């Protein structure tokens, strides 16, 4: 419950504060979102599995975002930013799908 409230509070803050993202950081935003979604769905599944761990959740979120951003940054410097972004999205996307499927199985038994 607290988790959902915190998430909603973050969204509301984002809407109210209307922050402007520096141009230099803009390319990393989509990747950061995918990484954050991966952490969230991983956390939800872990919660349903009864193995949720705060430390694991926070570290997976922070490291996901940082590693994903770093890979894209490195790719941009090497001239293969688009391909590496795709790679990151595929890997995280597969994990998100897997976790959502597990959540679905647990919630709907289907």
């Amino acid at each position: 419950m607290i988790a959902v409230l915190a998430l909603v509070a973050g969204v509301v803050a984002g809407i109210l504060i209307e922050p402007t993202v520096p141009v230099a950081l803009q390319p990393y935003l989509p990747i950061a979102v995918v990484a954050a979604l991966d952490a969230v769905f991983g956390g939800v599944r872990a919660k349903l599995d009864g193995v949720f761990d705060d430390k694991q959740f926070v570290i997976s979120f922070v490291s996901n975002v940082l590693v994903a951003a770093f890979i894209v940054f490195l790719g941009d410097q090497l001239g293969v930013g688009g391909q590496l972004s795709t790679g990151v999205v595929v890997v995280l996307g597969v994990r998100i799908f897997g976790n959502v499927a597990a959540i679905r199985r647990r919630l709907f038994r289907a």
Partner: protein
Amino acid sequence: MNPDHANPGGGNPPNFLTDLFANALDPGYADAAARGARRSPVARGVRVVALAAIGFLLAVAYREAVAAQPDRSQAHARLVEEVKAAQARTDDLQRRSDELRRKVTALQLAALGGGSEELKRIREQEAATGLAAVTGPGIVVTMIDAPPQIDPTTGRPSRAEVSRVLDVDLQSVVNGLWASGAEAIAINGQRLTSTSTIRAAGSAVLVDFRPVTSPYEVLAIGPDDLEDRFGASAAAATARALVDRYGLGFAVRSDGGLRLPAAAERSLRHASPVQPGTPTGGPK
């Protein structure tokens, strides 16, 4: 199969991709559960902060995605505005030029007196060079871009590139008209002179650097048999072939009273008239 059992250390399993598909959950959760992690209030606080950060991130990303679209269309709208302003300025200048031309004509009339031989010659030369509006019988050649193909499955116009009338097609028609005896030609109200250009810039056709668009109406004043002669010319045959092959529109009709506007005056910057009496032809 559970790679966690095969690889209890929690490091990278031998086949990363297989593991990724089989076991989407971060192995760290299982490890933490196995260790029997305690729930401390600090950890819970950090979790709340992280979730708030995620929510914040989602909101910001959404706002960025929404804001990016208007940015693009705003830039487009600004460019359209600029083009429209420039066109209005050109039209203004054109009007002013016409006005000055009328003034020049009136002054000539005043200076040389009506009916004078001099004035008559000036008028004729202006008409011949395209610097004065002319009227007379002639033909109207119309060329139209091919209509977009209708997609048989959706019934909507397909988005494939339509066949357009090209600058070379108009050049060929204009050359055919000159060759058939036309004395004055205008394309969509743009009078052609001896220095006129018909060029393509992207998918637009420029006549004397002013864009013209389909339907292209080529007005030509010429002798009575202009229609027959143009109809028999190679240019007309080429145009008819374009109709058959690409579905362009091409039509010729005669008109007893065409009125062609004057062309914009181009002052000579480098060439100067030869003085009477000096021998011409060949380099000096």
